[in-house]
């Protein structure tokens, strides 16, 4: 970029209007991509909910990001960098540049999230944005990053659409999705509850809820279950009693709660209050299923989660080397075990850094190429692959249930089964994911 003299400033000040007419001539012609780091450091943008209902998950994501930055810069015990199958990272930042970061508040609103991400890109020169705790936000920010020409490493987003109809070449998701939840849960549910079941779905009435419900219904019906009803509940509902009450007389013997966060806690609490779990219907014990679990959130439901099945991306009680290393360095730093949100964001940061190292550039196109089809291990989920076709990670999925006798406040879930990757995999053009177009990677500038 050229430096202007004072005289030059006056001149160029006067020609701003003209400059606008031919911006491409003047805008930083040197860089080949947006926010190419120039000094000795590189800036990452951590965009997480810090206010609103998911603030605690956001806080946990932020902890993981800080930990990842520390590890990348050679601090701490290195965490999962030691167990990671790729050894490109050397603990000297990324490509020799010290990793710095900026944070922002998504407020779990797509507008605010995009504003925050834009400020990171436009003001702070962030070369990668990561984070988010809901699918709406993740998809909105992913779209923005595609336009702006930076990489987006999605945080907690579970909707099929993120890597389905809304997939983008600059966006990558490590977290699992609704389809995988269904595919992982259905066999376990069949094994425990049999294949002659009548399921009643309560579904959050927005995109994520619908895709999740669709996935679970398809997966369970394939096992012989019958879907009695699917009732959509408004997002703003706080008291689910009026939705739970009709379940009793519907003839259903399983209730599936396609809710997340506060909705999940409240609907589950209502369901338990109404004594659904004590009922015997069609000579079968009535059961409740929560397809997507968040340990942080499940704590809010207290005793009510005990024995209830669901799926999760990762859990701290896993005993593989990667998980152990991560839990150790996170736990020693913060005093409690990490959540799945923390795990996925940590992994995403390391994966991004590693891709930069391997491709030798921060250029989004180079990074994307390095990530596409990348196979790795040692990050807590076993052998994993970033599929090139849709930028979705394929890995094992955990089926968990609420623990009956927790030993501590963090000990809410126990892993019932690790569903192997093969079982949750699907074709890139699967009907639930169809319609999107990855497009071309955009380096911006």
């Amino acid at each position, binding site marked *: 970029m050229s430096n202007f003299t004072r005289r030059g400033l006056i001149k160029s000040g006067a020609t701003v209007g003209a400059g606008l007419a031919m911006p491409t001539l003047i805008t930083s012609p040197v860089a080949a991509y947006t926010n190419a780091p120039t000094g000795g450091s590189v800036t990452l943008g951590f965009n997480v909910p810090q*206010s609103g209902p998911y603030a605690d998950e956001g806080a946990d994501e932020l902890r993981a990001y800080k930990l990842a930055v520390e590890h990348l810069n050679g601090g701490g015990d290195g965490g999962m960098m030691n167990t990671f199958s790729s050894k490109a990272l050397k603990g000297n930042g990324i490509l020799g540049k010290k990793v710095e970061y900026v944070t922002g508040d998504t407020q779990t609103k797509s507008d605010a999230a995009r504003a925050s991400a834009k400020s990171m890109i436009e003001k702070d020169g962030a070369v990668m944005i990561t984070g988010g705790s809901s699918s709406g936000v993740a998809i909105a920010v992913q779209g923005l990053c595609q336009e702006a020409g930076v990489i987006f490493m999605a945080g907690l987003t579970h909707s099929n659409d993120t890597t389905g109809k809304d997939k983008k070449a600059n966006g990558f998701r490590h977290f699992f999705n609704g389809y995988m939840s269904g595919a992982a849960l259905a066999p376990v549910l069949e094994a425990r509850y049999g294949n002659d079941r009548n399921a009643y779905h309560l579904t959050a009435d927005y995109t994520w809820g619908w895709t999740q419900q669709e996935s679970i219904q398809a997966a369970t019906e394939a096992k012989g279950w019958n879907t009695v009803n699917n009732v959509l509940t408004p997002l703003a509902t706080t008291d689910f009693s009026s939705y739970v009450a009709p379940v009793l007389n519907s003839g259903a013997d399983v209730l599936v709660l396609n809710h997340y966060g506060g909705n999940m806690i409240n609907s589950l609490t209502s369901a338990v209050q109404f004594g659904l779990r004590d009922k015997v219907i069609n000579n079968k014990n009535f059961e409740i299923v929560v397809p997507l679990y968040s340990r942080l959130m499940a704590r*809010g439901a207290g005793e*009510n989660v005990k024995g209830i099945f669901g799926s999760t991306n990762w859990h701290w009680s896993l005993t593989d080397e990667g998980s152990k290393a991560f839990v150790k360095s996170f736990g020693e730093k913060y005093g409690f075990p990490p959540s799945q949100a923390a795990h996925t964001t940590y992994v995403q940061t390391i994966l991004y850094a590693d891709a930069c190292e391997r491709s030798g550039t921060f250029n989004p196109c180079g990074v994307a190429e390095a990530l596409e089809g990348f196979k790795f291990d040692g990050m807590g989920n076993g052998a994993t692959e970033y599929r090139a076709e849709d930028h979705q990670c394929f890995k094992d999925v955990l089926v968990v249930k609420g623990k009956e006798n927790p030993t501590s406040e963090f000990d809410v879930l126990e892993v019932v089964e690790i569903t192997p990757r093969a079982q949750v995999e699907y074709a890139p053009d699967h009907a639930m994911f169809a319609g999107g177009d990855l497009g071309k990677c955009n380096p911006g500038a």
Partner: protein
Amino acid sequence: MIYKGFDGTMDAILLQILNGLDKGSAYALIALGLTLIFGTLGVVNFAHGALFMVGAFCAVTLQKVLTLSKISIDPTKTDFLGNPLKVKTPYVVEWFGEGTGNAIIDWNVPLAILVAIPIMLLVGYIMERGLIKHFYKRPHADQILVTFGLAIVIQELVKANYGANPIPTPAPDQFVGSYNVGALIGLDASYPYWRLIYFFFSISIIGAVFAFLRFTTFGMVVRAGMVDRETVGLLGINIDRRFTIMFGIAAAVAGLAGVMYTPINSPNYHMGMDFLVLSFVVVVVGGMGSLPGAVLAGFLLGILESFASMNEVKGFFEAIYLPSIDQIIIYLVAIIVLLTRPRGLMGKAGVMED
């Protein structure tokens, strides 16, 4: 689908009535407090939802206090990092023994009522004397801004202390489970104990407030003051002092509603905001300044909301191209009521119409 016939429908209707009364209880209690403050002081209190939340967090705090624990190390077990496990024994259990101690912790929510009453009265008192007092003569817009600011501050302080996630605050074990209310009238409809308690509790609070206003001298003066503040002031009665107390009572009503609500839904820091807009709708549908109106509208909207979530009702509205009636029922009813009855169900002319 298994159809259970007419009986099943009756059961469902009974359940939804109960649900409606239950939801309505919460609406009515909050709206009652809002109306008390509005009617006596002429202040639009956007911090009222926050008071409800503070009440709920009285229960949370009491639970934290009761479970304050002595930490001892159990070398035979390990925690998630492989270190010896720290075992927590609540002091209450230490002092009163396993049985009594745990029972006290278990009865946290009912106990919290006792704690919440003085706290909420005090909170109300401080709020009125310290802040609201200076806003009696200011435009409603200023009142909204300052109380909204206060609500944010209270909310953020709670969030800073307790985090953003809901905190489970269960009812005593004795009240877990449900009671077959339907059996009383030959139907089959079980309803959770605690929700029944919540309903009866609200009814008694509402009754107590009305009785208080109706049958005590204090209440009569306040009611007179609601009608004509200046005249009562001229009679040499210190109406301001009474209004302060009224504010304290309104805060206490909101707080108790919050305490009792905790077992129904785990409280979090923004539960007040979730209720705020709804309770304003309730107050306005009831008619500004009318206490019976607020209570009536609370129950009415609660019941309508419950019915709107029934599949049969949703199906019916879907058939007439009004899908997701449960998303909009409250607002739709509000619009219909306000268009047919200019001042809500029981509102007085000239109150907050300009």
